[in-house]
């Protein structure tokens, strides 16, 4: 907002501020612009930029809320981060979760969108069905799945009707991670599905007709026409999904509390544990810096990929 003051011409001499000639429609319009944007700008400064700065500041201090004290330790928290024996596991879980989530989410969304894009009656019903978990309260959805995934829960009940015996999903390391990913994908895949469906419907029919005449098969048409045409949507959804996957907290807390062991302790959860369960704010802030860096790097990489990979832009 300092820019507002600086940019208002210092027209102190003529005409006088407040005088009839000074208060022009243009000046009034500029002021309106600043006033309209002011709440959002102030909010960004107060609730985004200020905490971001504080995060870096805190990360340079030793600060346990229970023990008290706030002492400058320089890079000590970062040295601790580099040597943290739990960190490789946490980063591994984060990578496994994000990669699994993005791959499963995008491929399932694409498959569902392609199925719904066929000339079939009643696809709107199926669209509603696949989208419906988006409307279910997140924690309610997760609680139901925690019940269904119990040893004597509904999933194993269903499996037993076809003679299969399911594991205790949330108690095994690999199955717990898989379960957390699948529950999250089912919750939100409808969003990406709708985006893909819109993209598929935007592909000009003539392209398909022309290539069919040229003798291209279904798979070639998909690879050579559909994929390039919807690549901007794939990129967009992958960015949203990757960044979103790094924020997943409730599902982990409700389903596994980071367990068994630390097998589903992703970075956000580890950050929460350190800051709000062990009350170590300094180290919590350091982990926040790491999370921020990961979000930033991934976003930049994906925007760079746009140049290479995305064939067409609207």
């Amino acid at each position, binding site marked *: 907002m300092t*820019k*507002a003051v600086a940019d208002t011409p210092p027209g102190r001499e003529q005409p006088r501020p407040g005088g009839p000639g000074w208060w022009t429609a243009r000046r*009034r*319009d*500029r002021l*309106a*612009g*600043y006033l*309209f*944007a002011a*709440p*959002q*700008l102030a*909010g*960004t400064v*107060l*609730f*985004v*930029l200020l*905490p*971001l700065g504080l995060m870096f500041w*805190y990360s340079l201090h030793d600060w346990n809320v229970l023990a008290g004290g706030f002492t400058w330790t320089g890079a000590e928290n970062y040295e601790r981060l580099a040597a943290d024996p739990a960190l490789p596991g946490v980063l591994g879980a984060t990578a496994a979760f994000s990669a699994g989530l993005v791959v499963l989410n995008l491929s399932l969304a694409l498959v*569902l969108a392609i*199925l719904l894009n066929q000339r*079939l009656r*009643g696809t709107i019903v199926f669209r509603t069905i696949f*989208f*419906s*978990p988006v*409307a*279910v*309260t997140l*924690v*309610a*959805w997760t*609680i*139901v799945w925690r*019940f269904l995934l119990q040893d004597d829960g*509904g999933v194993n*009940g269903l499996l037993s009707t076809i003679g299969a015996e399911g594991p205790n999903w949330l108690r095994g390391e690999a199955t717990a991670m898989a379960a957390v990913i*699948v529950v999250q994908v089912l919750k939100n895949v*409808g*969003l990406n599905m*709708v985006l893909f469906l819109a993209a598929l419907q935007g592909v000009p029919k003539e392209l398909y007709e022309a290539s069919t005449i040229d003798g291209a098969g279904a798979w070639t048409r998909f690879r050579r026409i559909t994929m390039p045409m919807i690549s901007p949507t794939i990129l967009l*959804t992958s960015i949203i999904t990757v960044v979103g996957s790094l924020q997943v*907290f*409730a599902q982990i807390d*409700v389903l596994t509390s980071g367990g068994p062991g630390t097998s589903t302790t992703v970075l*956000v959860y580890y*950050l*929460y544990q350190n*800051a*709000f369960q062990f009350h170590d*704010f300094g180290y*919590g*802030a350091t982990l*926040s810096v790491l*999370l921020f860096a990961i*979000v930033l790097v991934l*976003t930049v990489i994906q925007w760079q990929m746009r140049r290479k990979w995305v064939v067409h832009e609207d």
Partner: protein
Amino acid sequence: MRTEHTKAARLTTARSRRAKLALYGLLCVLAVPFVFPTWWMVTSSLKSAGEIFAFPPSLLPAEPSLEAYGRVFEFAPFAAQYWNSMYIAAIVTVGTLAVSSMAGYAFARIKFPGHNLLFLVVLVGLLIPSEVTIVPLFQMFNALGMVDTHWPLILVPVFGAPSVLATLIMRQFFIALPGEIEEAGRMDGLGRFGLYWRMALPLSRPALGAVAIFSFLHSWNLYLEPVVFLSTPEKFTLPQALTQFTDAYGGPMWDVQLSAATLSALPVLIVFVVAQRQFVEGLAHTGLKG
């Protein structure tokens, strides 16, 4: 010649009918994990505690009873928690609509010095989810004496990172509005606020709808912030409250928990079923433009 032609056509229709049947079959199988949990949540909330664990699971309650629903309100200040979620989500929705539509309008339609730079500053918010800044946010609200109040759950979504996406959506929409409309408004003697309120806003219903659905759901589902900021059960919002239905040993009381979960999901689900087109397209809009 002619019969051959119809024979071939009949063959393709028979084949396409079989393909159609296979497609429907596939869609039905795929639909199970999407529908079953919600179906099971609602029906199990009407079952007795024993029947919930029946093996194999029953699809409909043998003796439907609302008994568990009564206990939801016995074990927790659930009415207060429900009210908290409702009123916070309502304020967040209205607040986000106001803040984002005004900022979006300014960045789209008003040329003021520095508007590009300031817009970039706002966009930084997209890169910094509240999860990243939760530690300093806690400390800030702690310093203001606002821990264990609802203020952080209102102020951060309305003014902070979540509203940035909303501002972006509104800006994209306002940019596409034809300039002649504003010219007409100016001729009628409308000032900036008049142009925004009387001309731009009424035309932007789809974008406003998208932002409303998206910010309501965001607030309704908010979990990390309540867990971090709130400690008094009477102040809890629904997501946090749902996890609290445990017995003396910390094990979940399933029938009560499922009833509470059903109560928390039902209003949004009803809105979704009634207005599903707006709902789906609104949220798709949020994704597309975001």
